[in-house]
């Protein structure tokens, strides 16, 4: 039996019909066409599916859509400002070459954004600890950590 839920996705209210076992990841990707959140493992081990739920980084592959009825969801597609300008952290990822294959990038950027919201001047150690649930197979993380740190230093975030 499908049930109606309401999610505010990237600032827009969406009424959705979902099955009780439907994952937020699939609802975002298949119903809303927001494919920025990725399937990397499906069992909470890689962070590719990270989205923000009421501002907190959450794994959409482990989240039942029905359980977050009424929440605010931010995906990577919602990070850019309305006039199309990149979020400072996105800028910083570009500048530091922190994007290679890009598959981890949406999750990394969203996780990094929350860190900077909570802690505008994190140390390198704090950054490493905060993003440890987000795997990246390409970069070796250093350019990612630098990108987050630089965005904080420049006070851009």
């Amino acid at each position, binding site marked *: 039996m499908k049930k109606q839920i309401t999610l505010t996705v990237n600032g827009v209210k969406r009424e959705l019909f979902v099955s009780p076992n439907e994952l937020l990841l699939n609802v975002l990707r298949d119903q809303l066409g927001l494919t920025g959140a*990725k399937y990397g493992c499906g069992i909470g081990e890689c962070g590719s599916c990270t989205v923000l739920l009421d501002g907190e980084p959450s794994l959409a592959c482990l989240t039942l859509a029905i359980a977050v009825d009424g929440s605010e969801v931010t995906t990577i597609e919602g990070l850019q400002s309305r006039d199309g300008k990149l979020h400072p952290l996105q800028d910083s990822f570009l500048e*530091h*070459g922190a994007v290679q294959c890009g598959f981890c990038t949406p999750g990394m950027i969203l996780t990094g954004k929350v860190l900077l919201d909570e802690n505008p001047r994190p140390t390198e150690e704090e950054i490493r600890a905060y993003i440890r649930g987000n795997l990246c197979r*390409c970069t*070796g993380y250093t*350019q990612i950590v630098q990108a987050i740190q630089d965005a904080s230093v420049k006070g851009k975030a």
Partner: protein
Amino acid sequence: MTRGSVENFESPAKGLKIIGKPIPRHDAWEKALGLTAYAADFSLPGMLHGKVLRSQYPSAKILSIDTSKADRLSGVRAVITAKDVPRNESVTRFGQTHTVGGGFEGLYRVLADKKVHYLGEAVALVAAETEEIAKKTLELIQVEYEPLPGVFDPIEAMKPDAPPVQEGRPNIITHYEVVKGDVEQGFADAEVIVENTYRVPFVDHAYLEPESGVGWIDESGVITIRVSTQVIEHFRGVADVLNLPHNRVRVMGTYVGGGFGGKEDITVEAFLALLTFKTGRPVKLTYTREESILSHSKRHPYVMSYKTGAKKDGRLTALKAQLVSDAGAYVYLSPWVLLYSMVDAAGPYRIPHVKVDGYTVLTNNTFTSANRGFGAPQVCFAYESQMDELAAQTGLAPHHVRMINYLEKGEALATGQVLDHHVGLKEATEKVLDALREGSPAAGKMKTGKGIASGMTSYGRMVFLHDTSRSHVSIEMDGSVTIRAGVQDIGGGQASSLCQITAEVLGVPLEDIKIYIADTALTPLAGTTTATRQLYMSGNATLIAAREVRKVLIKKAGEILGIDPVKLDLADREVIDKEGTGKGLSLKEVVRACASDGLPLYHVALFKAPFRNVAQFERIEGQVFPDFTFGTHGAQVAIDEETGQIHVLKLISSFDVGRAINRLSVEGQIEGGAIYAMGYALTEEVVLDKGVTRTPSFSEYLLPTSMDVPELTTLLIESGDGVGPFGAKGVGEPSVCSVAPAIANAVYDAIGVRIYDLPLTPEKIVKALKKVKDR
């Protein structure tokens, strides 16, 4: 930041405006915005969902397959087994442009028929209206198996009485040898000899994007497959499976969420083609992570016995090695990987007497094939551990033993291949030593140690394959530029570097360039994104194409301006007079004039690697590769002797990259490669227990996380003496080669014990330390 902005940066190569600078890649914008449509991000109306039924046994007879229940489930649109595949068995050629035979062509079987040879082998395919129904369908297919004895150790599999893995062929696929001088004489000349056996494990590529694609039939009946792949040219193999003409299958490669060799072999393509052909509907198929780990290729495990001899002053006299690689249940690229290992087996050293024997052997393990480094990292672990053992035996410094033996330009490998380009090993090692000397991070009570290792890795394919690439560059009426090239971009900046090369030659900013890649129907074929060959091959093809377009533009501009074309240059969307007379024209005006005269405003270039033929493969001789990339890694570790935990504190990479086309990309490749290989050194192992995978998820198969990464230093050397565009060498695969032995050598330096098997787990350290104490 605006697209294509170039920071104020002095390029080391004089006169170059865009080459050599650290520039955000053209594909990075969409990726950072979450807009890039990877294979699984694409859907079509009316699309079905595909799934694969896989073998539960590593070795078994298939007595029967009953699909009647599955067929009857509502919402099921196709159930396919081996009997439904028009051509279930064919020979894979992996984009060979020149057919070489010689055991290089592996059997490719789409679906298991009568027998399964490894756990996870595909047995049946289904397509259904929803993923749920597809999953349920798999449960309703009844396969009756009769388990058979298997063979899981390549050494066992070599024995004459071992059960044959593939009917009608011996388990030993290939035997090669490299012979130089008289190795027994070499050992007679030696004053010190070290002899050890090394083992390296199965490794997963663990790209974050699992295998995925969507297939459909276009309005003219062409089977079209949009897929995450390193090789769009599998379209031929797919057409063969369906018994269709090659031009009736089109493969479109997506931006790939990591490849590392694991998407070099065919993955979902033939499955999608079969399902879409049968149903007439679009079909999507994405592997689960577990399915990916169970069923796709792994890095080859090797057993390597090495005997190395030297004089007391460290000069090498002889090297003898035997390599045995586990090919798993199907041949795939195993003979090729072994061939790379053979060429590299003696390392980048001057050794008068060498004998190497190599075997690759079928077993009932998961099949093995390409993985970043392609046979180079395995032997590097062995030959570089041996070098440190020799240093310990002679009492010489490890770097000294290397320095006096490094090959130099003009000298030959044991195979006789003369190194006719720069060999930057001495500089690299000096840079690494300097960086290792600098203030070391404190390590408390732990024991610390330092180690280095050097390596060589080819870039470009084997010359007897007659490798070629093509690229199409055109300029539009407004002066914007389009590149069309069949390159697959797997995250290494493959497409982006072609944009940089073109921007440099045509004097336009990067944002004026648009590239279309990886479409077998519409982009000129550029070969595989493997073997660290794209910058070399397609970079050169693009350079030729852009230069041809430039020639036309400059000639026309010369006519209009009445200036000798040799005095003209293209820069900032203008044709300028290099002598500074101030005369010039906008690029747009020249393009219009050319168009009006009917001059070609495009060029398709063909670039050919050097072609050589090989008389026979048993003994490997002569030039096998176009060139090599050389480099050295340095590691500093701290070890907790109680727990055996190894902390890598520093990892230093130094490579002669020839020329850095994009500094950010080059450093990114080298850093990423260092950590990829740190996983190989410390934690990564696909554990197979009698053919059964015990590490099917990221909680058992441990990748490095952000917490594990040490201070990374990358020190580039730019000799300008590579065979790529602007003198570039390849770095994608070379970047992983010597990390594991550098770490193993640092461990030895710290605690005085050597581990001969990767990964260097805490258990192995504790056990080895205990053995020393008990002695």
